[in-house]
């Protein structure tokens, strides 16, 4: 055995050890990342899953004309001012006879959501023949009563219900007069002061319109800017200056863009506050650098041989760009665009500045209606004191995360799909 082989053998073992160590570091790093993700998801899902179902209670409702103070359900004015709460209260009192004290009666009525009254009015409006009839109906419970039922035995003691209320709830539970069902209002309603009536549809729509504006503006502008800078702009100090500033813009804290939007779009141009249009404009400014930078990288990655081939055949600059550079760069641009969009979807700070943090119950129907967005909704609910809003916050985060993960997956899939074509 030669000296060299001997020497190589010695160092070889050391080299392999070093390689193993190196690999172990990598695995460690990934494990830490995954662990953090796991913790985050367990925490959020553990808290949030309870917002996806809700308890309702069965009540024997009599549409008594006298209690309702309605004798003609076709008269809209009477319908408007009907005393529906009284009907619900009567039904509860019928279930728990002997509650005489005024305060106790109020506590009993508080177990059922105030949405019950609106529901009765809608029923009566749709089918006037109900007047005078008696039906067993299921009603949403008030958020505190709902939370009491959702809580474990141990936690029920700390629930925000009085002892009296707890006794009633237990009675209802034992009599199988409460049942759990899917929380429809979470996905069909806007925000509300009452947690059981609050939903994220308003925020989802707000996010949707905001993203629509952002996408419609930032992608074309970003791609056009990138194409110009890469393909047409002369290389001089001025373009260098622009390039440096685009990179600077990418590093500007997002709240600054919010202040800019407040000053320019709302202050100078007199656009309304809290609307997705302004939100979209602000987020466009914020995502533009991301899209421009990633689009330029994608354009740079197009092999120069393709350009030369096309130019050698006599293709004009425009033809080269439109027929070769853009199709080849598109997957990269789309990925950049979707990542930019995902970033914009999760953005909160700049939107606070332009008033999208307002409490808005109505569902927005367009980009000019006052609205809020998902991350701001999370912020709003997280700062609410009601116990139910804690779970709703987590639920909203889950929905937001679902959107973000979907978008990122889409970016990966799209990239793979489009790249394979070439």
């Amino acid at each position: 055995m030669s000296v060299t082989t001997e020497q190589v053998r010695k160092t070889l073992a050391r080299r392999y050890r070093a390689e193993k160590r190196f690999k172990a570091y990598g695995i460690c790093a990934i494990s830490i990342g995954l662990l953090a993700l796991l913790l985050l998801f367990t925490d959020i899902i553990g808290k949030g899953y309870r917002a996806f179902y809700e308890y309702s209670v069965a009540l024997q409702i009599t549409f008594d004309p006298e209690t309702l103070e309605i004798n003609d359900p076709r008269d809209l004015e009477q319908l408007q001012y009907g005393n529906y709460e009284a009907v619900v209260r009567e039904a509860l009192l019928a279930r728990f006879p002997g509650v005489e004290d005024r305060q106790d009666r109020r506590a009993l009525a508080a177990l059922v959501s105030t949405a019950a009254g609106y529901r009765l009015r809608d029923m009566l409006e749709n089918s006037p023949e109900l007047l005078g009839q008696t039906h067993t109906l299921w009603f949403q419970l008030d958020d505190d009563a709902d939370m009491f039922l959702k809580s474990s035995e141990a936690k029920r003691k700390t629930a925000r219900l009085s002892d009296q209320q707890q006794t009633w709830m237990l009675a209802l539970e034992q009599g199988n007069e409460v049942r759990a069902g899917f929380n429809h209002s979470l996905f069909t309603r806007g925000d509300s002061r009452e947690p059981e009536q609050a939903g994220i549809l308003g925020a989802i729509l707000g996010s949707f319109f905001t993203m629509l504006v952002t996408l419609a503006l930032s992608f074309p502008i970003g791609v056009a800017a990138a194409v110009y800078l890469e393909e047409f702009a002369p290389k001089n100090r001025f373009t260098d200056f622009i390039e440096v500033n685009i990179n600077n813009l990418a590093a500007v804290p997002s709240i600054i863009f919010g202040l800019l939007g407040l000053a320019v779009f709302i202050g100078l141009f007199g656009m309304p506050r809290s609307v997705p249009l302004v939100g979209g404009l602000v987020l466009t400014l914020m995502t533009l650098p991301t899209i421009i930078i990633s689009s330029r990288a994608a354009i740079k990655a197009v092999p120069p041989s393709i350009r030369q081939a096309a130019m050698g055949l006599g293709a004009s600059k425009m033809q080269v760009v439109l027929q070769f550079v853009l199709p080849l760069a598109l997957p990269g641009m789309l990925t950049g665009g979707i990542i930019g969009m995902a970033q914009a979807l999760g953005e909160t700070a700049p939107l606070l500045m332009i008033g999208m943090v307002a409490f808005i119950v109505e569902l927005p129907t367009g980009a000019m209606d006052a609205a809020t967005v998902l991350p701001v909704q999370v912020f709003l609910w997280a700062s609410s004191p009601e116990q139910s809003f804690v779970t709703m916050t987590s639920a909203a985060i889950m929905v937001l995360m679902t959107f973000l993960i979907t978008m990122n997956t889409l970016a990966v899939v799209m990239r793979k799909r489009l790249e394979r074509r070439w």
Partner: protein
Amino acid sequence: MDIAEKMNVFQDAVQVDPRVVAQEHMMTEENLYIPEKTVGAPFVDDPKMRMRDVNVFYDTDQAIHGVSLDIGKNEVVALIGPSGCGKSTFLRCMNRMNDTIDICRVEGSLHLENQDIYDPKLDVVELRARVGMVFQKPNPFPKSIYDNVAYGPRIHGLANRKTDLDEIVENSLRKAGLWDEVKDRLDSPGTGLSGGQQQRLCIARTIAVSPEVVLMDEPCSALDPIATAKIEELIRELSESYTIAIVTHSMQQAARVSQRTAYFHLGWLVEMNDTDTVFTKPQHELTESYITGRFG
């Protein structure tokens, strides 16, 4: 140590930037050996392309020094010389591909028949339809074989009907000797062909627009000997209908395909003559050193 050896050592050391090589040499004694005037017979009667006193600069570095030569009709001219001698740069002047390099500046007169190539009024699109180019590395478009060949005729509007286009595509592929190999899979991507087939596809693509001159920049340097032989055969056939200028590193190839050969050295055109004369009776010492393999 004689001059050629010195140069050999020098070239081995500086295989990077041709312009640096040229510049450094200005200061040494070697460039004394580069002749004031091109040796041999660089000019022909009634040329297809006429180049006079061409200087090319990259920024402040001069890559081509006062090159004058003619390319005759239906002639294959080989441009040879050591790496970095400016032969590719010169070739790319002839269809203004150097325009795409911002720092590149071309001086002198270049004519395609009576047309001044660097006339500011001349549209490069038109020029490149007349002077086609085949590149060193096969670079088919990421499109189907058919679309690769049809691309040039399409953008120049050479075929109005589908049948015309089909005919152009078939003819071009036939001329490039590729038709029989690909006629059943015209819709499959051009990038799926082998290297030699890709290069022949690129040649088919170039001749589909019926150029008058075809420039080839080391078209075989990325190919194996068999594919190279096919391309060389093709070049000989094409020379019946086209004027061809080919840059090559292989002296055998130059000898096999060309009628006339130009030897470039450090940006100067040292010698140009009939290919036979250049390879059998070179008149300049530098040419001789190069073709006998003493450097390069």
